[in-house]
């Protein structure tokens, strides 16, 4: 089972779990704050809408198309 750091907190997830799922498994599910200050969560689920952009190991990536890996650092965006 991979263990990642989600916003600084350790989280163990099943193999094959997406970062999008991890956001809810280890937090409130939200991924970013919008331009006008609303919290947003993964929406289209298939790599199109860009709502689930988070920082994984320092890179901005889509949570819905990224699998959790052991030691991965994930930060949802304030």
């Amino acid at each position, binding site marked *: 089972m991979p263990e990642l750091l989600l916003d600084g907190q350790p989280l163990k997830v099943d193999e094959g779990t997406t970062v999008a799922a991890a956001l809810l498994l280890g937090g409130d599910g939200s991924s970013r704050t919008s331009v006008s200050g609303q919290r947003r969560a993964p*929406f*289209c689920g298939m790599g199109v809408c860009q709502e689930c952009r988070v920082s994984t190991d320092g890179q901005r990536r889509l949570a819905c198309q990224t699998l959790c890996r052991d030691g991965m650092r994930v930060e949802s965006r304030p």
Partner: protein
Amino acid sequence: MKVDILIIGAGPAGMAAALAAAPSGARIALLDDNPAVGGQIWRDGPQAHLPPQVHEQRRRLAAQSTIQLLTASRVIAQAGPKQLLVEDAACARVIEYDKLILCTGARELLLPFPGWTLPGVTGAGGLQALIKGGLPVAGERLVIAGSGPLLLASAATAQANGARVLQIAEQASWAAVAGFAAQLPRWPHKLLQALGLWHPGYRASSHVIAALGDSHLQAVRLSINGQVKEVPCERLACGFGLIANTQLGQALGCRIEHNSIAVDNWQASSQVDIYAAGECTGFGGSEKALVEGAIAGHAAVGDLAAARHLWPQRQRWQGFARALQHSFALGEPVKQLATPDTLICRCEDIALADLREHGGWTPAKLASRCGMGACQGRICGAATQVLFGWQPPAPRPPFSPARIDTLLQLGQPE
């Protein structure tokens, strides 16, 4: 990297194309932006339950030493003639090909309505994908709305993972849905599928009015056959049908007809050596995609006899596709769900009221920033096409957000 056949999209069409082309000995690369093959319909994950047929397909793919799988990889630009620039999590490369097969699939049409930006609201197919990827929904109350058979499929996935599906609101009329169902015996396998997916909360002539809640979804206001009803819930999944992913084909110069990549009997596009198969040539489900993909794979390696042999099968599933598209045509009410303060552009938070005054996509974009965000109008462009009839612009590189590091490879000698 150089291959004989490059296949973009590893859903049913792309997998079938690769398997059909493989016996020729051609070097094949099969690329997909998801972490695993399967596309949307056969997406794998900790909460996915794939049919045995899919495991068989995946086993056959893995057994072919001439097929290279490039997952979690995205096409960013055309690097030169018969060259695509591709990015994955770690690096970027230019792939050169002789023949290209586009199996880029479809995405959901996501239409704006009040509250659609609240956490807890997702696409219908989107929710299914998120659940397969491990999103926990056990014990959650779920409402599904929109249009098309995907609503039932999404409900089934959610229920299998412990969600309570309270209501499914289909915008098409009972007459349309019944008409579609009545045609299903022509495709007995589809009829059995539909029966397996049937849900007592399914209502026709019904649609979402608003998602309610402050910082998170708390309830959904629905119009159920003309009656307004509020349903407390934790999750709302809304999809209004499918849109073919034609951007890459369009950028490569393929002719687009009826919002799909136009192909001939061999699944060949209007561009030499570019084929297309599956949902991107017109949506009609995995069976159509499988047979089209196989025809494209055979044709791309010159095995025209094998391709021709599959024509009758394709014709059968294209009939199903026509029935599907006709029955679930969008009615006017769902095109008018957004109110003046509903955000249309989710990237830049641009409301309906800021768009209406403009005469088209480009002036609206220039004046309001609608479509200038990271999704590059994929969501709001499709929505304004339905709402206002605005034509979204032609795609330009980068086709998706890409690391600048990746783009540095453009024009660089190998």
